[in-house]
């Protein structure tokens, strides 16, 4: 694709060739568009798809994917998105309009690729929403349409012979959630290398034998999604290398930045200004007053063990950076805690740990200014194991522990029940919001996305919206158009698009036995 704007022209355009036909409602977006688009339409399409993806995101946060509630919530969102609902096709749509709608789908997808290829965090968000959107649309299609799509995209999988299926039926049944033997015999199974269905492997949701996965037809979507994900990550990697070539045209670039900053909000990557500086001695007090439960856990773990393991140090250290703890103070804070342990003295600390802390502040290694983890990241990645205090308590703690804690803090009964209900329904961020409301005796609803946001909202309520905090206002405004500093791309990102930052892993490697 050639997205390079022609220099000297008044409006950057997408280089032109003739518009393609769109044979199917679903697209794998393999072929880039080859027509001219005005800057106005460019922006308009981008904003439309952002709206759609944002709706997908919010439905995904509040509901379990694949559940009935999820589908219902999506239906509702689609109704709200009437003017941009080109991504669903009802029978009422005139055939003549189909092409125009599919064209919008196609173009807007490619425009957002440009806006979202720039950093790990952006790519991760974009891929996730695109996949969820695709999954939703795929599952709405009937089997004839699906077969048609598979064939058009060269994904014609062959089911295993029924004889083999019969022989394996017990294993196939056991590998599923709730199927019975007759259920197995009513389905087609597809045999694919396990590498093609990693999501099923990860969740132990498929039968594996000799390197092959036996995928029931109901999970076909997973194979298709895996293929889509791979294609998309690869494409984003390539796009991001191509984007610098567009930097000559400042307007297009600014536009792209505005697009992706529309909804990530603040990324809390820079420590706050001096007037809100936090010192090492203040942390104890602040932790009781304003830290979210996840950070309170880490603080307590640190106090008890005089140590935190890698992910704990990362989650807590970056959070502290985000609330305004300077590098010097951070070194002081960690050192004073760690050296309380019997086998750690100041010198050993300097040798083993100060590097990691300076690293968090972008002073070592690749010198990237690392961003504090968002709730989603904490909830969905790197679940804690034995000896770990990181993670989100609503997701990773025994429910009784949370109940006990709320009792100790004498939260009102109705609030407690609400928190527990949200936990049961896997709505961890909503549980945290209720917790926040009870802890601060407020009824104000905050849309909780980030532990640092929890902290800032808490400080705001406690100190009043006093001077020095004015910049907060724009940040927590959901649509605040604050341009995120685009960080240098990670050289290893082909792999890290869906996973973690390589550098973090590099550090982890230093503390094995």
């Amino acid at each position, binding site marked *: 694709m050639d997205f390079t704007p022609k220099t000297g022209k008044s409006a950057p355009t997408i280089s032109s060739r003739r518009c393609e036909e769109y044979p199917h409602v679903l697209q794998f977006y393999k072929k880039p568009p080859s027509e001219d688009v005005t800057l106005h339409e460019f922006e308009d399409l981008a904003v439309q798809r952002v709206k759609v993806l944002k709706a997908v995101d919010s439905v995904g946060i509040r509901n379990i994917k694949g559940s009935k509630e999820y589908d219902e919530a999506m239906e509702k969102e689609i109704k709200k998105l009437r003017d941009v609902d080109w991504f669903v096709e009802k029978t009422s749509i005139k055939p003549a309009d189909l092409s125009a709608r599919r064209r919008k789908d196609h173009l807007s997808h490619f425009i957002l690729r440009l806006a979202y290829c720039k950093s790990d965090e952006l790519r991760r968000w974009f891929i996730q929403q695109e996949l969820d959107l695709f999954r939703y649309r795929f599952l709405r299609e009937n089997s004839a349409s699906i077969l048609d799509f598979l064939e058009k995209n060269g994904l014609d999988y062959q089911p295993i012979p029924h004889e083999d299926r019969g022989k394996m039926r017990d294993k196939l049944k056991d590998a599923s959630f709730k199927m019975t033997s007759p259920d197995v015999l009513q389905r087609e199974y597809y045999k694919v290398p396990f590498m093609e269905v990693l999501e099923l492997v990860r969740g132990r949701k498929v039968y594996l034998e000799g390197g092959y996965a036996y995928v029931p037809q109901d999970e076909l979507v997973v194979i298709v999604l895996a293929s889509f994900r791979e294609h998309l990550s690869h494409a984003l990697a390539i796009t991001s290398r191509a984007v610098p070539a567009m930097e000559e045209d400042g307007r297009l670039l600014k536009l792209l930045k505005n697009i992706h900053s529309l909804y990530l909000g603040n990324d809390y990557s820079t420590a706050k200004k001096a007037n809100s500086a936090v010192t090492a001695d203040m942390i104890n007090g602040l932790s009781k007053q304003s830290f979210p439960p996840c950070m309170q856990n880490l603080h307590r773990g640190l106090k008890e063990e005089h140590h935190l393991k890698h992910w704990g140090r990362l989650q807590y250290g970056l959070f502290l950076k985000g609330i305004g703890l300077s590098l010097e103070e951070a070194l002081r804070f960690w050192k004073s805690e760690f050296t309380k342990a019997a086998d750690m003295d100041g010198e050993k600390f300097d040798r083993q740990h100060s590097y990691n802390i300076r690293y968090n502040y972008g002073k070592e290694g690749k010198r990237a200014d690392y961003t504090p983890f968002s709730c989603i990241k904490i909830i969905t990645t790197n679940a804690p194991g*034995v000896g*770990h205090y990181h993670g989100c308590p609503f997701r990773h703690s025994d429910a009784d522990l949370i109940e006990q804690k709320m009792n100790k803090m004498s939260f009102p009964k109705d609030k407690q029940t609400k928190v527990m209900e949200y936990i049961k329904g896997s709505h961890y961020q909503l549980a945290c919001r209720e917790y926040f409301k009870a802890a601060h005796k407020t009824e104000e609803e905050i849309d909780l996305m980030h532990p640092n946001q929890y902290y800032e909202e808490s400080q705001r309520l406690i100190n009043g919206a006093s001077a020095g905090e004015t910049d907060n206002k724009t940040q927590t405004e959901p649509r605040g158009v604050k341009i995120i500093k685009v960080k240098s791309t990670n050289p290893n990102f082909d792999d890290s698009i*869906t996973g973690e930052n390589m550098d973090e892993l590099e550090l982890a490697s230093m503390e094995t036995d």
Partner: protein
Amino acid sequence: MCDKKSSYDPASLPDFLPMYYKRFFPYGAYFKWLNYGGVPKNYFSHREFSFTLKDDVYLRYQSFSDKQELEKEIQKRCPYKIDIGAVFSHRPRDQKAVKAADFRAMEKELVFDIDMTDYDDVRFCCSGADICSKCWPLMTIAIKVIHRSLCDDFGFEHILWVYSGRRGVHCWVCDEVARKMSQTARSAVAEYLSVVKGGENQAKKVNLYTGNIHPSITAALDIIGGKSFKSYAIEKQDFAGTDEQIQKILSFVPDENFRDGIMNVYEKNHPKTSYTFWNVFKEYIKEKADFTHKKLSNLPDELMLQYCYPRLDVNVSKGVNHLLKSPFCVHPKTGRVCVPIDHEKAEEFDPFTVPTISQLCDELATNDDSDNSSKRRVKDYRQTSLGRYMHVFDNFLKKLEKTWHGKIVEENGKDKQF
């Protein structure tokens, strides 16, 4: 750890290392492994090694063009520890000269790190870095369970198990498919193999579905549920010997009536041992966990898994770029060599009989005295207690070699065609 027998003194490590690297470290076999038959060509020279020297001085991005250079450097530096990293797009030693964006980790063996410290909540004999014969069986179980799954489920064939020198084991999966795996794929396999999940704030760390139980877990339960659990938890650990331990087990039971019920039966029971407790527990659940309490019926299995199922450090497995201690290093604290383990005889492996560096040097001195000089040079280590472990490595290599034989013929054939 009690190693009176080998009587190794960490302070003497620098005295022994030159001798070890001169006469014991198996450069030939080691190179043969990491060179993978020279397919592709730069596989060895693009591999990162890192050395840890005296006083924790840490050198990353070392690389060597061939066996001779590797041997020379190791002997010159006498590292306290050697780590193996990824195969990079460029020679790691040129890392500074290459644009950061171009210097990429391309391939590495799929590795697993199992460390006894991760089992502190289910062993009562020691904690932290210590191990003893009462808790080591956990590692034996880990090897068996993981090895089975890697072979049967994932179809891997070239798997090397290595003692970490102190309190755990490492697993290197060397199949070509495994070496080429992405980060996502590595973490998916590691997650598939992770059953015990939860941090310091979760007591019950295994939760099976109430419906069907996945074949890989059933297979693990076959391994654990037979002799292993009885021998480990009941006999060696006496896992329900104290009130505190019993309370801990009961804390996994989410239903108060069940908890009380189990205790009522157990109170009347004599004698009160871990064995009788386990029987009461199992029987009670079997009897009472009817349709309405279906979730509870998995409790005995979940408990066995929590106590015995292998615990992996997923982060170590995940990164293509993650370094792992090399086989045949010497652990600086224990002096023990990181020797390969024969998975088929995992039970027989005893970490306390793994030779220490001082012991090997002693053995060699004795051999030197009694032996006539000429033919000794080549196979020094085979005549010491390191010999039997080399045997395991040789077998692993023999099988691995077959994979590239085909390839080399292929490549040669290509050449001739043109």
